[in-house]
């Protein structure tokens, strides 16, 4: 789950990281009032969960409160990469003399958190990693010990930070570590951390990604989820504990198990089709879950055929078949359905479905081919 810039910076601030004075506004009027409070010159920053806000014109300087009002009016009317701007952050404008990158993320290969810094701030770290990897200074953090002061110092040395800033930098690095730790973040990033003309260190922009699996211990953070970035079907799927991702193709997929669900997408493509979604109904799914999954697939108007691929292990094929029958009775789909049931209670499952006018398949390859052909037939019939 992604947090907005203003949410991330508020968290950082609680951990002793200096952030610019500023507040969030939902109207141009509010933006003007905040600009008056802050003494005139401000930055108006759209709060949408996509990269490239600046390039899209979603971050702009305003020289006075009147200008702030006008700029906020324009930005609040914008859509950036398909997302509506509902809020703007109005921050006092800083005069920047240097930009730094500072972030913590999970290093999967090292199985440890890693703190990364670069003297090339303000640019995406992936870009720095691609073009000038030597400019990235890294320190792996022992998750049982936490960040050590010497590690923060080594990073300061590595990015040529003037000595006068080391003490505050250490405080910022430690604050970022504790924010990352306490929020169960998978990424906590300050980009840029700036040295101002009057020699202060300020976190000008902030970003946090949180571990969805840890939200149970952070109900306050879970409430911050911005549903604008998620497809409605994905939100609906989460309610039923289904793992669903919408894609652009026309063959709807319902599969048990994440690896098999990915493989089903791959094999559809291999035989010349395009999957409409990734959907894992999970292990041991009952008929209600299957029915919910079927409805979600069929609400996608692009879907011209559905492929159900169930390998019964823990999930029993007869149970899934019952769910399919419930869903068919409710949804009355008009598209062809290809079904493959293998494993535990597959015979019983097939028997239950024998009157349901579904296309049956024995192997994965056979199922994929039949689904692809079904779409061709539907298209030819138009």
């Amino acid at each position, binding site marked *: 789950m992604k947090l907005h810039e203003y949410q991330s910076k508020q968290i950082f601030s609680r951990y002793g990281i200096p952030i610019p004075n500023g507040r969030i506004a939902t109207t141009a009027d509010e933006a003007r009032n905040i600009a008056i409070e802050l003494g005139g010159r401000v930055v108006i920053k759209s709060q949408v969960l996509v990269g490239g806000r600046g390039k899209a014109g979603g971050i702009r300087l305003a020289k006075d409160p009147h200008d702030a009002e006008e700029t906020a009016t324009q930005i609040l009317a914008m859509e950036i990469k398909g997302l509506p701007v509902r809020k703007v952050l109005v921050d006092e404008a800083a005069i920047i003399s240097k930009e730094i990158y500072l972030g913590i993320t*999970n290093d*999967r*290969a090292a*199985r*440890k*958190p890693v703190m990364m810094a670069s003297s090339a701030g303000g640019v995406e770290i*992936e870009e720095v*990693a691609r073009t000038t990897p030597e400019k990235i200074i890294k320190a792996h953090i*022992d*998750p*049982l010990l936490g960040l050590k002061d010497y590690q923060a110092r080594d990073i300061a040395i590595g990015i040529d930070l003037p000595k006068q800033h080391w003490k505050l930098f250490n405080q910022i690095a430690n604050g970022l570590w504790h924010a990352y*730790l306490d929020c*169960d973040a*998978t990424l906590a990033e300050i980009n840029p951390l700036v040295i101002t003309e009057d020699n202060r260190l300020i976190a000008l922009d902030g970003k946090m990604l949180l*571990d969805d*699996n*840890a939200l*149970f*211990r952070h109900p306050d953070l879970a409430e911050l989820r911005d549903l604008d970035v998620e497809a409605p079907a994905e939100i609906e799927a989460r309610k039923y504990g289904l*793992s669903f*991702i919408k*894609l652009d193709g026309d063959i709807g997929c319902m*599969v*048990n*198990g*994440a*690896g*098999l*669900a*990915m*493989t089903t*997408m*791959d*094999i*559809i*493509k*291999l035989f010349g089709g395009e*999957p409409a979604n*990734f959907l*894992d109904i999970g*292990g*041991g799914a009952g008929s209600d879950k299957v029915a919910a999954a079927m409805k979600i697939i069929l609400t996608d108007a692009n879907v011209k055929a559905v492929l159900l691929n169930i*390998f*019964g*292990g*823990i999930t029993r094929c007869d149970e899934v078949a019952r769910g399919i029958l419930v869903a068919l009775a409710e949804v009355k789909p008009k598209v062809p359905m290809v079904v493959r049931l*293998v*494993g*535990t209670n597959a015979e019983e499952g097939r028997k239950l479905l024998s009157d349901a006018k579904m296309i049956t398949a024995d*192997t*994965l*390859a056979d199922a994929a081919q039949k689904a692809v052909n079904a779409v061709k037939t539907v298209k030819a019939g138009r």
Partner: protein
Amino acid sequence: MSILINKNTRLIVHGITGNEGLFHTTQMVAYGTNVVAGMTPAKGGEWVIEGKIPVFDSVKVAVEATGANTSCIFVPARFAADSIYEAADAGITLIVCITEGIPVQDMMRVRNYLDQKKVRLVGPNCPGLLTPGEAKVGIIPGNIAIPGNVGVVSRSGTLTYEVLYALMIIGRGVSTCVGIGGDPINGTNFIDTLTMFESDPQTEKIVMIGEIGGTDEEKAAEFITRHMTKPVVSFIAGQTAPPGKRMGHAGAIVEGGSGLASDKIKALQAAGVRVATHPEEIPSLLF
């Protein structure tokens, strides 16, 4: 021979009184696994599975009383890390964690703690282990595999079942099947398992099933080039997965251009591994 589990396995099931725990313990016992104890806090003193298996409040006490040497964990994600620590501290040498959805920071602490001890963790978020004809620890259905000489290692559950089943249909069997799990931080990786298969006399050929996310398959490819004498056949799931999206498994995600299926396939092919275009092709590449 086989790897990790066999007839000498003495299993304790964490969360044995829960729905999942009880169901799968029944299956494991029916398969012939020697389940010697269960563990559920505050249920100590009870007996389950027709009064045959004692339940304990503490793994340490269970180990002392029953000589358990292997743990299988079914407890909910929020308690799973604690269960792993408890098993490790009680002297268990093999921990199989089935639980899905453990916070990744918990797993980083767990892994770094276990690295200081002599204990192997398999999983989490995995289907467990199956040595056909001898024992199963976890949730892999016992009826879809027969004993044989193919070692199977995989990051996915049902996809593995497909392969076991496809092998069984043509009369081919498996030495041990190892589900290493779909999480970004796990206890046992491909290289660990390949090492064990290489030195296991029963295993003659290996099937390795990977998926998008991370670079474990690439590292395994390097390892295969340098150390493996036994043939390896592979399949990588997620060639059509869009970047930046988590495909069901916490670890199945292409991030910052890393973790692509195409890179993994390329690396494996360069190491002489035959990579199947779909899982049903695997038996024909093996035999």
